[in-house]
């Protein structure tokens, strides 16, 4: 369980798939769901589940309990930017709990939309490993506590879109060429038909910032966890085939243009004095391509590109600065951070 966070591992930069993510949604039988839970009930529930996962004297010290209320706003935002918590979780007013493993790759939100939201992330293409790690936490809770479970419907969740396995499996995937050639419109209906969804992670306008997408299953009933994952893998393969076709076309006919874009991106990252998140994300996407396909003859930074993408987000910048910053201040701080890496 110890080791580096997924985003700090080189494998995230070695192919289109940056990471594999598993989420399991569970509720305890004893308590009403989130909407009908009161504050004392929430407090007891959070304590009870946290105790089941990491009992004080169990030696399972790898889970850290975070006291959300005592964290500053910037600190909270960094969890959001790392995808460890959701905006809903941060906005919640009832007692909540957050458990994070040493390597930050397994985390559990207590009292989000469901009582238990287990999340497990692995770098690269490794959904099976991520599922195994999530199942370990799931089994740990189930050892001492009773889940809301129905013989026909499976695990009962607050929202019926999660009922059954409570599983959401997803890949974080870099699809810059599909994005550039505007092929999503044609692809999306076909993907949706198979119960899979594809969308930008940092969505703005019609594009996703930095060409980073999340592809995940939509349906949670009628299939085993293995079948859900397999269907996602198959669809991801298809999407990647399209991406590779678009790539081969671009690198074939427009290689010089492509190289030009990558080197210009590098130049701006290395020398700009003020840069927005959107622009930086898109330039980092170019540079990632440059390293991935050997088009950029510059030493690769020791930090992974996705880690850099994460660290230029507002929460991370403000946490490093140790203070609140307005948008313009952040744009300066972002440029300074990037110069240090690329210049």
């Amino acid at each position: 369980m110890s080791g580096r966070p997924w985003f700090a591992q080189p494998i995230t930069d070695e192919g289109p798939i940056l990471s594999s993510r598993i989420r399991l949604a569970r509720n305890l039988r004893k308590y009403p769901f989130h909407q009908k839970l009161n504050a004392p009930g929430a407090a007891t529930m959070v304590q009870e589940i946290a105790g089941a996962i990491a009992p004080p004297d169990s030696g399972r010290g790898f889970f850290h309990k975070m006291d959300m209320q005592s964290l500053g706003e910037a600190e909270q935002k960094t969890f959001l930017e790392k995808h460890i918590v959701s905006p809903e979780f941060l906005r919640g007013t009832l007692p909540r709990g957050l458990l994070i493993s040493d390597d930050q790759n397994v985390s559990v939100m207590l009292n989000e939309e469901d009582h238990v939201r287990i999340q497990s992330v692995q770098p690269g293409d490794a959904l099976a490993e991520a599922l195994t790690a999530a199942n370990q936490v799931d089994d740990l809770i189930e050892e001492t506590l009773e889940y809301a479970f129905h013989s026909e419907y499976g695990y009962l969740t607050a929202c019926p879109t999660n009922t059954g396995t409570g599983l959401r499996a997803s890949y974080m995937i870099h699809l810059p060429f599909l994005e550039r050639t505007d092929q999503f419109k044609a692809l999306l209906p076909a993907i949706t038909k198979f119960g899979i969804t594809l969308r930008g992670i940092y969505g703005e306008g019609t594009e996703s910032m930095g060409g980073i997408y999340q592809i995940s299953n939509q349906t949670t009933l009628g299939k085993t966890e293995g079948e859900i994952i397999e269907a996602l893998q198959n669809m991801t393969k298809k999407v990647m085939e399209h991406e590779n076709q678009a790539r081969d076309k671009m690198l074939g006919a427009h290689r010089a243009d492509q190289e030009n874009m990558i080197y210009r991106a590098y130049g701006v990252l290395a020398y700009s004095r003020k840069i927005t998140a959107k622009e930086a994300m898109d330039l980092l996407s170019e540079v990632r391509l440059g390293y991935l396909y050997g088009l950029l003859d510059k030493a690769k930074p020791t930090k992974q590109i996705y880690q850099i993408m994460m660290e230029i987000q507002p929460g991370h910048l403000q946490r490093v600065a140790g203070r609140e910053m307005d948008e313009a201040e952040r744009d300066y701080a972002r440029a300074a951070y990037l110069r240090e890496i690329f210049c």
Partner: protein
Amino acid sequence: MLCQKCKKNPATVHMQQFIGGNKTEMHLCQECSAIKMDMPISFEHIFKGFLTSLQSMTANRPTQTPSTPCGRCGMTYEQFKSSGKLGCEACYPAFAKEIEALFKNVQGSTRHEGKFPQRMGVDMRVRREADTLRIQLKEAVDAENYEDAARLRDILRAMNLPSEVKSP
């Protein structure tokens, strides 16, 4: 314009999604759009749309809309319809008909095929298996395929099920 999701922060992010070939627009705040990894927005749309259509379908037959709230948590069907969230595990049987219709439509199935909690797992798995075998047995008998039927009956016997376990 306020964010469509939290209805609190100003919407600064304007997204377009293509659902079944149709374009929908979402106007969200930075927080709601940027880092949300979980519920895919398009699916939420489909789901809410279905709830609304279910409501208008049953609106003509008011006796069919569940009017009694959940006995355990007090959630009414109206509340569920507007939030899309159930209040407790007893809400499932309380609104079983509507939820099953929703499952069929949105999930494409009503039956869980995945993991079972260990504490009920063994019994549950055996019941499931026996259910399937009984169906196969009936089919074999109906088809007058007595060789298969005998084989299936033997397997069922060998499973040594307690007498109260019967197919639903």
